[in-house]
């Protein structure tokens, strides 16, 4: 309810995000008590380094959902960008910066195509990005000749933990993008227009603001960030996998929606989406550490996702009556 229009006090901002954090903390505590090894630095290090790719993708997805669109192509675009970078570095012997640039541009291009087609021909973004999901996947197979590409050291440093906290460059970039994304959404004209477009595109148009450009920009942004996500995947695995990122769109959308962004557009918070990512990752890792069997893993994951959002609904109601 509040995230979007939220500009009243920093306090309410705190309550908003702390609420989501609360659910996360409950989860962490639960797993902490369930298995000895959960509360170890290595778990958190692992968590940090697991999430950069999903995180950057989720930043873009939040914007896509805020404008009442959706981007189903993120997984495929990530795979395409990653494999392209991989092929460039191993077969064409490009340097990392050049290959990374190519990957990002590829993502940007895919996203821009999504945006332009969906906006100019007024085709639902669901369909356009579903088409792109197939197209980018096909292109990834084609680029990589359907082979997994081992890249090795040249990209690995991106995912390598550094310093005392063990944060990788990829994590730092991802975290910075979350902060920047939130600021863009709340503090910039572009962000406000994105929210307005998601609430009521017709009213935006009637107000004399052209909604097409911001919408195209949002999809281009999502593509660009998917490209970056693909690069981070490659860094983490030291390899580029044309088959990677299948079903990633669902995880990304789930994280965003758990974070309280509406699928109907007009409301959203990048920070909460990030907490959504953390919630999903903590459940996943915690269940593996507990040693749950596959059926139990699935069932618990499902139940926790629903409960997290139910809890959030109650918390928000409480908060509203308070205010």
């Amino acid at each position, binding site marked *: 309810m*509040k995230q*979007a*229009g939220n*500009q*009243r006090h920093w306090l309410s901002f705190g309550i908003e995000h702390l609420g989501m954090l609360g659910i996360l903390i409950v989860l962490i505590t639960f797993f902490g008590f369930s298995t000895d090894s959960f509360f170890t630095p290595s778990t958190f290090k692992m968590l940090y380094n697991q999430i950069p790719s999903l995180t950057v993708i989720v930043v873009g997805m939040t914007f896509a959902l805020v404008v009442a669109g959706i981007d189903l192509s993120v997984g495929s675009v990530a795979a395409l960008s990653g494999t392209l970078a991989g092929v460039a570095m191993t077969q064409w012997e490009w340097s990392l910066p050049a290959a990374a640039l190519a990957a990002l541009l590829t993502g940007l291009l895919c996203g821009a195509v999504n945006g332009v087609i969906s906006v100019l021909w007024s085709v639902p973004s669901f369909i356009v990005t579903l088409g792109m999901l197939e197209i980018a996947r096909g292109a990834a197979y084609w680029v990589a000749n359907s082979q997994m590409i081992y890249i090795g050291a040249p990209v690995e440093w991106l995912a390598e933990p550094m310093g005392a906290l063990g944060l990788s460059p990829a994590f730092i970039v991802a975290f910075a993008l979350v902060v920047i994304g939130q600021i863009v959404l709340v*503090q*910039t*004209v*572009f962000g*406000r227009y994105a*929210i*307005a477009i*998601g*609430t*009521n595109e017709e*009213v*935006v148009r*009637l*107000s*004399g*603001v052209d909604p097409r450009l911001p919408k195209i920009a949002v999809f281009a942004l999502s593509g660009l960030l998917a490209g970056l996500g693909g690069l981070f995947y490659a860094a983490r695995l030291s390899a580029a996998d044309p088959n990677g990122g299948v079903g990633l769109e669902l995880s990304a959308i789930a994280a965003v929606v758990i974070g309280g962004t509406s699928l109907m557009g*007009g*409301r959203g918070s990048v920070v909460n989406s990030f907490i959504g990512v953390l919630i999903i990752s903590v459940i996943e890792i915690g269940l593996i550490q507990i040693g749950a069997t596959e059926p139990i893993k699935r069932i618990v994951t499902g139940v926790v996702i629903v409960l997290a959002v139910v809890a959030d609904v109650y918390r928000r109601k409480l908060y509203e009556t308070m205010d």
Partner: protein
Amino acid sequence: MPSIANGTSRLQIHQLSKSYAAPVLRDVTLTLAAGEVHALVGANGAGKSTLARIVAGITKPDGGDLSLDAHPYAPRGRGDAESRGVFIVMQELNQIGTLSVAENLFFNRLPRRWGFMRRRNLLDQAREALRTVGLDSLNPWTPMERLGVGQRQLIEIAAALSRECKWLILDEPTAALTDPEIHHLFEHIQRLKREGVGMIYISHRMDEIRQIADRITVLRDGEVAGRFESGRVASDELIRVMVGREAIDTTPSRRSVRGSVALRVEGLCAGKRVQNVSFQSHYGEILGLSGLVGSGRSETMRAVFGADGVEKGAVYREDRPQPVRIRRPADAVRAGIGMIPEDRRQDGLLLPQSIRINSTLARLEEIAWGNVWLHKKRERDWVETWREQLDIRCESTLQLVGRLSGGNQQKVLIARWLMRDCPVLIFDEPTRGIDVGAKAAIYRLLHELTAQGRSVIMVSSDLEELQAVCDRILVMSAGRVAGEFSRGHWSRDALMDAAFSGYMERRTGG
């Protein structure tokens, strides 16, 4: 500006025409001079808003041309029109609910630096703009969706007033406003006149037209049906030109037969706007609810109807000792209470659906065989009947409601509830945007309803209307009932005093 100073500045509309499925405007010619208020009147669907939208650059005309100071003027969009100094306050509220009041006020020109919104700047400008319409106490960061229709209307006006305009179109700006706000608005209009701004003023309230119009153009079925070079025209004459037949009696007299208690509300508290509200309504009477914008009239009615949660208090039907449990509107309807919400576009109508679907929504089961199978012929017949009764102007009852003129949309909403036929009917601003002819029809309907022994509660911002129609008027102020008046025991001043009382007390008390 010299052109304004010597009064030669003109906005000319020449032979303008526009059609959708049917022609809406036919060869309309009109001249607006700087510093004058040019009233545009006509029945619902006459084409007033279409004309206004064309001038404001929102809609493209099919034929004819416009000129500004003898320069051709063909705006490509609203932004283009605004850059030429032409502004509009549209009939329908066009605001982004999830954004704040401040952001809505300056939506297409948010103060910015390097893409960042300059919040401090925006806040100052917003405060300033809100002050012009008397909303000083409103926090500019309040999300738009929290406000009532009246306040939203004021904010639309504030947005236009905060611009450097040369030409201003006001499309039914006062439909949801009460006297003090209207008075305030008129002061601004007078100021703008003095500054040489030319205004097109659209309204269905004849007293307003008489008060501020310098010239009047009457539209009928998209054509100019009459021009008056002065605002001082008898309403009867105006109405005759508008509807094309002899004047109708707009305030039919009636005998009221007050029956037993139909609805009793005791100690109702809901949110901040409804504090300990108690009242009764009787069968056979029309109970009016008056008050200033934001005084909590709508919220009270929503609470009674179960649309919003209730914190305290109870609603009783007739003289039963047990209160009715109303937790949601469906409960209220089951208990025989119906309500027409004030915000027709958000709470009332399914805009992308047909008139038929909209008007039968509350009584679908009864036009279905065995509560399941839609009896489409019966549906059509019923809807046809009400279309005629309420004179809904449309191509067919399959037309999408979103494409109707504002007044006709309101009629569709009324048709839905008249079709549902509840013993207790709450009308929240039922005549908002409705033309004089149809208003009379609606008043007649209200009287018929009460004559049949129903109880009608009518919330309205139009004091004259309340005085003309109601048997009893309840005045709300700052969320409380501030006075109750029976027919014959009220006066305009007494009603206004009651409406202000809650705010005075607070000021002296706090």
